[in-house]
């Protein structure tokens, strides 16, 4: 897939009562990292881009405005991975349908997880296991833009490194990543550009 001439993700005047306005452009294969104190509006920005929270302003995916997409299609391609993971069924495997389950079976060992984890119960998962499984679940959708909200917040150094490797592969495939992270080191390791969220506005660090 060749990189389109326009930005993969473009955000213009995006705002709600709670945050913004935000302007942003992320190219295919580019990662921008956003740091900032808790409650500064980082998650709000990602949720607005994914159209999970109501907002004014424009967002384009490969030059196409979000309102030209049915909302579920938009969210499938511009995928928000929340810091707090959500589970709606008892067994882990229930959260992966069809090809996603096969994908998950190949990804689980790569993220340092035991391979029988998928057949167990969600209740037995640790926070770190949940976080990695949610990441696999999200990437199984093959999004074009990945909005990662603290994807390694609950992970130790080794697991963090494994996650970062996977994210770099996605970048190489042309995925645009907006990464919210509390770790300045991670922002530098993964981000091609860095931003800070301050009082619900995006500023250069």
């Amino acid at each position, binding site marked *: 897939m060749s990189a389109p001439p326009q930005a993969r993700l473009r955000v213009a005047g995006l705002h709600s009562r709670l945050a913004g306005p935000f302007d942003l452009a992320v190219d295919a294969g580019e990662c921008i990292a956003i740091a900032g104190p808790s409650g500064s509006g980082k998650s709000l920005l990602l949720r607005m881009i*994914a*159209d*999970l*929270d*109501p907002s004014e302003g424009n967002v384009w995916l490969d030059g196409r405005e979000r309102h030209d997409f049915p*909302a*579920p*299609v938009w*969210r*499938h*391609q511009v*995928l*928000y*991975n*929340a810091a*707090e*993971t*959500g*589970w*709606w*069924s008892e067994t882990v495997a229930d959260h992966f349908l069809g090809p996603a389950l096969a994908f998950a079976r190949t990804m689980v060992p790569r993220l340092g997880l035991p391979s029988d984890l998928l057949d167990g119960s969600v209740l037995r998962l640790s926070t770190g296991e949940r976080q990695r499984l*949610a990441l696999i*679940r*999200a990437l199984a*959708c093959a999004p074009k833009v990945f909005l990662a909200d603290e994807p390694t917040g609950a992970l130790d150094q080794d697991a963090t490194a494994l996650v970062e490797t996977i994210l770099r592969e996605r970048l190489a495939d042309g995925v645009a990543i907006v990464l919210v992270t509390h770790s300045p080191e991670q922002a530098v390791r993964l981000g091609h550009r860095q931003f800070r969220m301050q009082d619900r506005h995006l500023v250069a660090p």
Partner: protein
Amino acid sequence: MTPILLHPGDIAIAAVLILLDGVLSITLQLGLHRQLAIAATRMVVQLVLVGFILRAVFAIGSPWLTLAVVVTMVAIAGREVAARPEQRLGRFGNYAVGASAVAMATLLTALLALTTAIRPHPWYDPHYAIPLVGIVLGNVLNGASLALDSLLGGVVRERAAVEAQLALGASYMRAMRGLIRTSVRRGLLPTINQMAAAGIITLPGIMTGQILAGMDPLEAAKYQILLMFLLSGGSGLAAVAVVYLAAWRLTDDRQRLRLDRLTAKHRG
């Protein structure tokens, strides 16, 4: 056989039991005697009042007056459904959702019974219409309020699970499917239990009443069976309606989960 009519003295003797409860509450320091006295007094006043009103309504027999009584009953039931959940939908949403679900389910089942099974002349005869609406309403109210409480409480508790599905590209109705299912179940369970227990664990109220009023037990059982079907049907309809109406109010044209439209009830 004519019913044995009660005299005020008969009732006064039964009231001694309530007095006994009050004495027990005082001696055991349960602190319930005040509440007990208020509840008992309310019950007597309310029932006597209803007796007088119904006597008047029956005597007049006007369809419009009957309709007015039914509408009042449905409105009060809708308010009850709206008031019970801990969570409130904005812009009087609970009331709108509760009243429309209860009205729809009650009127549908009551009309069905009056025009097919019971068939009084005229079909709106208040002797039949008002008690029928009353008993259907009581059950429908229960089913609808349990279902609504389950959905609104569940959606707050399960927010992360619903939003995770939305974020992965599920449609809103797909993401809510599990919650919708458990909430409808919750609303229907009491009715199912009631049907299963009828006649073995409890002698249902209508049947008891009719037997006391001198009706043949088998005839009374037939009435009770008809009513059980009506009550279950009505509760099911109301639970489904209240859950879907509330679910629709929690989303928008972009299939988001709009929990900003819910507020927790203030508890005094």
